[in-house]
């Protein structure tokens, strides 16, 4: 039954259906534009959800854990600024003085129970907490360059290196196709393979890989990359035995070393020059760039992720204080968006999470599992 106004209006107004149709068309267009913007009409658009699906394909489902760098331990300590970086960045964290840090050491990959192995990429994440609300978070890896320079490259790499369900191993043909489609990854992986692998977390150098911009008090902007360089003497990897005995040997060594005495790294900021690539994390900057020793990171406590403070932190590379800004590197947005989704997923799954590889008991025992 049509409402009374409809009959009345059609009787007096022959253009009514046209106008009704126009209203319908406008509303449909708005809805269509909304759906398009939300990615529902673009099955090939790379979204955080599709990135998470690729991690699931590569690593399986591990409820409650980070989708990447899933195996880790929490640490705390402080950063003692030398004041030397204050000339290039107005960030409060670079003024002379001490700020607390909450950090996390981890292994790359989405398998929270993977056995420690020397060649697995190691990471160090730090949250600097100067007074006030201006926090600085950074996640760094012990590789000289990143294997890819775009979100698409990262996604393709994940899929190419995913285990084939039939063999349980990555398909060499897929890897070959990936290398052919991403020559920048082939070049970067050669550099990454040649890196020096040290005996553990404590004597590893961790690099920001992405470029950022430091902004000084006058508004001057400098492209930068940073690294934390161990104060501990660097010894080459000699892990064959410990690896066989203890599947958490890298974490256990770190826990034991920190329990013995605090471990330290220098925060080294490399200043880029005009022409140094800021939007391509696969490319190293030329040798001889000016480096600033911004201060020392001291780590004096370790704890399991199951009780540590780092667990509730998303080490989003775009959590930056005034004085540090993102560069034009597209990986920064890709990392930020993907980390945010991983963080949301594990927050939803918090109560179903299984114990972490490195348990509170293991840390309590001084790293002996």
């Amino acid at each position, binding site marked *: 039954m049509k409402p009374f*106004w409809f009959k009345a*209006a059609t009787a007096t107004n022959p253009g*009514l259906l046209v*106008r*009704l149709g*126009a*209203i319908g068309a*406008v*509303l449909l267009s*708005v*809805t269509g*534009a*909304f759906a398009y*913007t*939300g*990615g529902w009409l673009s099955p090939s*658009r*790379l*979204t*955080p*959800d599709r*990135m998470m699906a690729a991690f699931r394909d590569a690593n399986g489902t591990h409820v409650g854990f980070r989708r990447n760098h899933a195996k880790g331990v929490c640490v705390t300590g402080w950063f003692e600024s030398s004041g030397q970086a204050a000339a290039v960045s107005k960030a409060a964290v670079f003024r002379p003085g001490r700020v607390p840090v909450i950090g996390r050491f981890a292994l790359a990959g989405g398998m929270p129970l993977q056995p420690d192995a020397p060649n697995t990429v190691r990471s160090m994440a730090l949250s600097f907490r100067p007074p006030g*609300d*201006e*926090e600085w978070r950074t996640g760094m890896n012990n590789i000289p360059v990143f294997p890819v320079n775009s*979100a698409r490259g990262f996604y393709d790499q994940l899929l190419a290196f995913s285990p084939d369900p039939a063999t349980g191993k990555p398909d060499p043909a897929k890897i070959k196709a990936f290398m052919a489609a991403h020559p920048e990854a082939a070049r970067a992986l050669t550099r990454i393979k040649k890196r020096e692998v040290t005996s553990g977390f404590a004597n590893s150098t961790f690099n920001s890989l992405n470029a950022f911009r430091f902004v000084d008090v006058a508004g001057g902007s400098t492209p930068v990359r940073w690294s934390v360089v161990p104060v501990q003497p660097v010894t080459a990897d000699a892990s064959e035995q410990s690896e066989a005995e203890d599947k958490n040997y890298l974490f256990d060594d770190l826990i034991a070393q920190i329990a013995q005495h605090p471990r330290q790294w220098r925060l080294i900021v490399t200043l880029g020059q005009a022409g140094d690539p800021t939007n391509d994390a696969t490319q190293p900057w030329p040798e001889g760039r000016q480096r600033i020793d911004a201060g020392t990171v001291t780590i004096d406590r370790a704890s399991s992720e199951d009780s540590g403070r780092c667990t*509730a*932190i*998303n080490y*989003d590379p*775009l*959590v930056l*204080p*005034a004085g540090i800004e*993102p560069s*034009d590197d*597209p990986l*920064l*947005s*890709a990392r*930020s*968006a*993907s980390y945010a989704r991983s*963080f*949301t997923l*594990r*927050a*939803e799954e*918090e*109560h179903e999470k299984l114990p972490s590889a490195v348990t509170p008991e293991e840390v309590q025992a001084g790293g002996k599992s």
Partner: protein
Amino acid sequence: MTTQPRFAAVSRLLHWLMAPMIIAMLFIGVDMAASVSRRYDLFVSIHRPLGIAILVLCIARIVNRFINPPPDLPDTVPPLQRFAAKASHIALYALMLMMPLVGWGMLSAARYPIVLYGPVRLPPILPHDLTLYAWLRELHTVLAYLLFATFLVHFGAALYHGLIRRDGVFGSMTSWAQGSMHFARTNPASIQNSTQTPEP
């Protein structure tokens, strides 16, 4: 039949200031949630201050609604539509107010900084708590879809009044002309009325 009175100028100003902000916010939000591209960072840095601006304006608008109550709907609007109009306006106000608060709360619970611009940040309004964050993050999405749906109803109803009923309801918010109403032409009585009482 009488002329449909307009909304007060302040009310119209607030409506048309906020309308593009809210629509931009919905589109930016839904894009952010489905993007790993470079505009993600740009959109996040717009989304936060824009949301807070909407919160401030929304509070101003609620205060204004008490100072300048909206004009009554014409007598010709049937009771069910009257109810729908009232309910959808309550929903719009509730969602406009809740969206930024839930957003602020969810960032607080995740311990994300609530950056407005440069060093200007808002303090957290909730404790750092992952379960609370997960709940609010989900709520933010659900409310966003509800707000979009309510906006569609509102927009559709406005067009229906403007194009089909032509009862002056559309013009009560869209008309900025001095004196008479744009949409009075199908209603000779109102043209007479309005020409009889021109504004000074």
